[in-house]
């Protein structure tokens, strides 16, 4: 039972498959005041760019029904400080880091990826080709298959650790995008990033978010994420780290059934800052109740044929 959560993915040998999603956990410092970060399967750190960025003007977040919009604008202290201060600080914890790589132009992505992949505790990169909140770059990388493939290949060439590509849900054909980055050499996928959304304040007449549009996250988008993972996981042979509205151990299983091999928790960290350790604690009992010995038995269960399924207690 105690090993029922240990999983192994390219570059990642994790004590459990639960990790905070990028941008929802900073670099871990704040949450380290609340619980021991070593309890986590991994940490997806905030997007890192070559130069420091202040990001967008405020308001940067807005509540929506069962979700939220954000347009942080990739605020981060820049590659050098992330390496020397944040990653160095995180070394005190027994937890692998997945470093989220962002940029406006190809060269930036490559430079950041190359450098971050050298950090001792960075076990994988997450190539953020899907950030909806930066005007240049990001979005084209995330919506045009050829562009995504090309960038993936270039980043793979310089990276010393496996590369996961984070897919945007704001596309007509998610499978096409997934296959393109798989072709480009991606070791895994992370999905989904946020849906582009907007709220308008009826008293002022202007969008609530200063950047106008923002990325929609939270339980509101979970059905879209589940559908996309269900589609993609049947068409690619690289593993998927699923995310989008995960709030509970039950949600984790739903992601697994759809086709995920690990699960990230974003917005829910704001709702309940102890959510990750809570889910990790609840998972073994839930697995047991559902009749599984190991969580990896759950991957793709909603579409796998009977003969493809690993052992499952009656």
């Amino acid at each position: 039972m105690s090993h029922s959560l240990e999983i192994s993915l390219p570059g990642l040998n994790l004590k459990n498959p639960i990790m905070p999603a990028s941008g929802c956990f900073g670099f871990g410092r704040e949450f380290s005041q609340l619980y021991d970060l070593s309890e986590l399967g991994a940490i997806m750190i905030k997007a890192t760019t070559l130069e420091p960025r202040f990001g967008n003007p405020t308001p940067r977040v807005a509540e929506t029904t069962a979700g939220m919009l954000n347009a942080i604008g990739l605020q981060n202290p820049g590659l050098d400080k992330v390496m020397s201060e944040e990653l160095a600080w995180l070394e005190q914890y027994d937890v692998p880091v997945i470093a989220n790589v962002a940029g406006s132009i190809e060269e930036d992505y490559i430079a950041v990826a190359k450098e971050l992949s050298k950090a001792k505790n960075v076990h994988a990169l997450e190539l953020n080709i899907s950030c909806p909140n930066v005007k240049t770059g990001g979005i084209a990388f995330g919506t045009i298959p050829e562009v995504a493939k090309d960038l993936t290949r270039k980043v793979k060439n310089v990276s010393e650790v496996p590369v996961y590509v984070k897919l945007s849900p704001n596309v007509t054909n998610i499978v096409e995008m997934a296959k393109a980055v798989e072709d480009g050499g991606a070791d895994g996928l992370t999905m989904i990033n946020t849906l582009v959304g907007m709220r308008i304040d009826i008293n002022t007449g202007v969008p609530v978010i200063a950047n106008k549009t923002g990325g929609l996250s939270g339980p509101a988008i979970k059905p879209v994420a589940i559908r996309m993972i269900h589609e993609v996981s049947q068409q690619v042979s690289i593993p998927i780290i699923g995310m989008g509205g995960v709030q509970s151990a039950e949600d984790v299983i739903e992601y697994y059934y759809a086709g995920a091999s690990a699960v990230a928790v974003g917005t829910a960290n704001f709702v309940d800052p102890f959510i990750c350790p809570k889910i990790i604690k609840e998972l073994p009992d839930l697995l047991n109740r559902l009749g599984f010995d190991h969580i990896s038995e759950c991957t793709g269960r909603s579409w796998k044929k009977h003969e493809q399924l690993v052992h499952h207690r009656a």
Partner: protein
Amino acid sequence: MIKQEMCEVISQSQIASHIYKLTLRGGLVHEMDEPGQFVHLKIAEQMDPILRRPISIAEIDHKHSEFTMIYRAEGKGTKLLANKKQGDVIDVLGPLGHGFPIAATEKGETALLVGGGIGVPPLFELSKQLVKKGVKVVHVLGFQASEAVFYEKEFTTLGTTYVATVDGSYGSKGFVTDIIGDNKLSFDVLYTCGPTPMLKALEQKYIDKEVYLSLEERMGCGIGACFACVCHTGDDPQGHSYKKVCSDGPVFRAGEVVL
């Protein structure tokens, strides 16, 4: 230390138009010290509304493990909060942020406490702690109209209290700055909380004084992790240095951050 706790509603009552006073009990009260800190409330079990709501701590009662908040029920979350009854429980995260420095004012000195509308509540615990230390406190409270006025009596028991309303329906007509000018109020340290235009006016007017301001910003996490609530620093107003209202603030010294 920041704690998360299901706190019990001890009492809730309406004290002015749309304004409610809510007292909760919980162990995390013993983590509260600085006036001006806030808590982050998850109002419903469900995911609608999903985000926590930041509300200042207006009064701390360590002895009974109770604390009081005063808030305006206007939007989705605060309206639901106003429905909570004695015995209900509320999910509280806190205390959060850095409050007003009591140490900034010496015993015997005068502190001017200026509050606007729903910025008034955190000044109450501040005033109590300053008085306890032996500081002379003067309060200037501004409200929209007479029906929005609250806590005048409570503040009066601690020190001289002026009230202004925008429409003149109670106290003197005008803004808190008018009161300070008209009454030639002098002070060693100024503490203030209220709408940004008021904070800006005070910051400009008392540029060479020691002024502490409590800011408001839309929040995600409330603990410093999401970068929702950042503002530029005063010494680098266009650059990429920043402070987070939730964890570096909400109280800043005037000039420290760009309002």
